[in-house]
Structure formats: structure tokens, C-alpha cells
């Protein structure tokens, strides 16, 4: 088995976040709520966001749902990285993550933990696992203050699957 390839994909950090996620659950209060899924594989993510008083900065992100190690670790790492970020910064990070999945960029020093996901770029069929949570967060941020009841599909949009 090409173990080196697999170790690039399944970095220790990724497996730790999969096994012992720190941000599973629901935020209190729920200022934004968005569900996302990858219909073809059945992965789901249920994202809740707590904002600051003026509603322009993320105080907390939590997730529930089911998916593979890549999807779940990506959600936990994202939740970690999003705390304290303004909505504008958060959207920029979503974009950076997508660029990273195309092998085009990586995160700067203060966000370097997210770079453990870089290995996914070498496994094109798994990219949508990694981007599901980011896509869902983007939809959560871009929605008006009304929490959305439906799912957003990470596969419907071309960037979702890259």
C-alpha cells in the first residue's frame, strides 16, 4: 500500500480532529444555521454560528453531522480557525481554502494549522469532502439573518467539487 501517499492525506492532526473533535455541537445562541450535504455520498454537516453583538464577527462555530475523516476534520479545523474572525475575513478564508484545494495557495503563518489539509488536493475525488463544511459556512454567512431550513448542496456548484 502506498502508505506515504496516505500519510500525506491522513495527517496525524486530521485523524486527531476526526477522532476527538473540539467543536461538535450547537452554538448558544444560534445566530446562523445552515445544513450542507454531498448528495452522492451522503455526507451531511449541520453548522451553527454565534456572532458578536453587532453581527459582523464570528464568536463561535459548531458542527454536527456525519462524514468521513476528511470532512469531519475539515469542519473541526475550520471551526477552530473561525473564532474571532470578521465575516469578511471568514469569506476570504473560504476562498483561500478553495484555492488551496486547487493546489494554488496555502494559509499564512497565523492560520497554518489549516495547511494540514493541503494533501487532499492530491486526491481530487476527496476534495468535495474537505470543502463541504467551508461551502456550508459561506452559505451561512451570506444568508440574511433568517436561518435557512434547507440543505445546500456542495455538489451542485462547480466550485464545490472543484
Amino acid at each position, binding site marked *: *500500500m*502506498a*502508505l506515504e*501517499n*496516505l500519510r500525506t*492525506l*491522513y495527517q*496525524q492532526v486530521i*485523524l486527531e480532529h476526526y*477522532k476527538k473533535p473540539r467543536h461538535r455541537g450547537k452554538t448558544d445562541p444560534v445566530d446562523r444555521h445552515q445544513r450542507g450535504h454531498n448528495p*452522492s*455520498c*451522503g*455526507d*451531511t454537516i449541520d453548522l451553527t454560528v454565534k456572532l458578536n453583538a453587532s453581527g459582523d464577527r464570528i464568536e463561535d462555530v459548531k458542527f454536527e453531522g*456525519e*462524514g*468521513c*475523516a*476528511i*470532512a469531519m476534520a475539515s469542519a473541526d479545523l475550520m471551526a477552530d480557525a473561525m473564532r474571532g474572525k470578521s465575516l469578511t475575513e471568514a469569506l476570504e478564508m473560504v476562498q483561500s481554502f478553495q484555492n488551496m484545494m486547487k493546489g494554488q495557495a496555502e494559509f499564512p503563518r497565523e492560520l497554518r494549522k489549516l495547511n494540514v489539509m493541503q494533501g487532499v488536493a492530491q*486526491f481530487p*475525488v*476527496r476534495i468535495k*469532502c474537505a470543502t463541504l463544511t467551508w461551502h456550508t459556512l459561506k452559505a451561512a454567512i451570506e444568508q440574511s439573518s433568517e436561518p435557512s431550513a434547507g440543505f445546500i448542496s456542495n455538489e451542485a456548484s462547480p466550485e464545490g467539487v472543484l
Partner: protein
Amino acid sequence: MIATQHRPLAEDLRLDFPILGQEVNGKPLVYLDNAATSQKPLAVLDALQNYYRRDNSNVHRGVHTLSARATDAYEGARDKVAAFINAASRQEIVFTRNATEAINLVAYAWGQANLKTGDEIILSVMEHHSNLIPWQLLAQRTGAVLKFVELTDTQEFDLDHYRSLISEKTKLVSVVHVSNTLGCINPVEEIVAIAHAHGARVLVDACQSAPHMPLNVQAMDCDWLVASGHKMCGPTGIGFLYGKLDLLRAMPPFLGGGEMIADVFFDHATYADLPHKFEAGTPAIAEAIALGAAVDYLNGIGMDKIHAYEEELTAYLFQRLAEIPELKIYGPQPKADGSGRASLAAFTAGEVHPHDLSTILDQAGVAIRAGHHCTQPLHRLLNAQSTARASLYFYNTRAEIDTFIASLKEAIAFFGGLFG
């Protein structure tokens, strides 16, 4: 236990499948995703090539030589399919794009004309989305009601529950012959007899049986049967609908256009005789002819032999899977001789998610499927968001099962090891 004295069927036949000779990620390909689609033998690839190199022409519309050749080959393929499932008449075989289109054809043409509010359609909980959504849509259009046969303790079709659901309100029973997820083989003859006793029609989804065992629609007595060519060594883009002659005759057309007409006026038309009434437009000629070649190929081996060899593989597969305590396998266990279920296994492996498993196995050259295999409601019922599935065909070998099991063990160890 299953000592194979004779030379395994796959040994020689593998050479007919050029695709199987390749390496994937530096390892010999072990293709175990046959329930999704099978590989194609040279005979089928040649049939496609030869048609386009020598005979390509539109069917039924020309008097020139090529058109006659194309028509003969296309209609010849229909004869082959009819004989393959022992249909009483070649007119009972309608070529479609795939099984899904065949089911939709029945749902539109027959369903729309025959169902009304309060009528009931019985399906099972193990249906592929292809045999669920067309009936949901029909129910929405007509007000008919869907009922679902549940599973027994061994995760098979519950005949008793079926008996309790069926009534004079039941107009249609549509069931899968062999489940693509559970691998169980449903008692279709009994299902049909019970339905007919209540005046209900029966459609059998034979996608996972037609490639693997002899079929006899007359003995089964089903009203319709559907299958996809691409799962039985044929190309994609071609499948078929079998329907009893009188039923197909009584059904209005599905799609309108060329090929399906007898006489056309500006304001109305009369329709062609069967089966052309249901084959509007230029059909998938090359694909149909190549499906005929696939049927010849399968007959050349013998469906009985294929079935018997796959039972041996099933016995060995389950014997080896039993070595891995982390696995939860869905569907019934095979009998000791490997009979009683299809040669496939859908399973979960403890903490290792099916996608991760599939990626890890892919690194070892082993192709398995991960997901809900288009049976999402069944997965929900089984409380599994997704499963991994290895599905075999007659060209697979015990050595490939060994490779699969070894890499499965490695995958579980890889995850388990890193977890500590």
C-alpha cells in the same frame, strides 16, 4: 472447504477483459465494483468497433445495404435479449437507455393511464432510487399511495409483511430481484403469484440478477422486467424493458417522434406495432448490437456456470470477511456452499468511514464503492449513513479476494494504529 479442483472460471476469461490487465496506483487492479457497472469483454468492444467501421447506418428507414445490415444487427440483438430471458416473443423487448428509463416508461405509459387516487403501489424498502422515484412521481400525479415491504431479521424481503400489505387496492408491485446493497435474492415467483391473486401487476428490477443468473420471465410470470446492459458486460446507454405482449399493446406510447409511428397526419398519428411504439427516435444502435454481443458472450460461458462460480466466490468472500471482527456486514449470510445471496458485500468497518476505506483500498489498486449505492432510505433504516461495498463478477478470483481482505485489514490497522 470449497476446494476447487477444476480450473477456476475466471483464469481464462480474464484475458477477454483488457481493462483488467492494468495497474492502478502501482498495483494490479482488483475491480470489485461490478454492481455499479461491469467491465466489457473484447467481443463487445469489437462489436462496437465493427459496427462503426462496417455497418453504421440508421435503422428501419433505408433500403440501401448498410441500412439493411444495421437493421438486421439491431433487430438481431433484440432476438438475443428475448432468448436470454426466455421471453415468449421478440416484440416483448423494448430497448431503452437503461433500467431507469425502462421503469419510467412503465410509470408514465401504464401508470398514468391505470392508476387513480387511493390505488396502492407496493415497493420494498430495499429499492434502488430508480425503482422508487418514478413511483413517487406517479403517486404525486395520480394520488396513488406507496406502501413498503419491510425486512426480516436476516435483512431479507419479508413475505409475511408483503402479504399483509397487499389488497384489492394494490394495482402494482415493483420489486428488485437481487438487492444491490443487501445482496438478498427476492422470491419473485412467489411475489408475482401473490400479486396476481389480487389482480395487481408486477415489475421486476433485474439489474443485479440478469448479469449473474439464468432468468426466465415466463416461469417468473412477471408483467414487466427491466435491466441495464452496462452491468452485464454490455456498453452504457442501452438497457431493456420486457413486458407481456397484451400489456405493452394496451399501453399508450411514452415518448413521441420518429420510429414509433405508423401513419402521421398534421393533427394525429397512428403508432407503430410493438416494440417500435416505445422506441421513439434513432435508438442506440451500436450499443444495442453490442449488448447482443454481450448476451452471446455470457451464453458462451453459460449463465449456470457463471452463477455456480460466483457462489464459490461468495462462500470464500464471506469466509474471509468473517476474519475481521470490526466489520458489520448487511444482508443475509450465504449458505456454506455460497448460495442464497449475491456475490457482493456491503459493510461498515467500525471507526473507518467507507470513503476513507475506499481511498485507502484504491491506493492498493482495489476498487470498491463507498456511499449509499442509491438506496438512501434503506441506509437510513439500517442506521448507516453510508457503507462500503465490494461486488464481484465471474472474472474475479480468490487471489483478488485475498488482496482485498489484506488491504482491508491494513486499512483498519492504519486508522486504528494512528488512533492509538
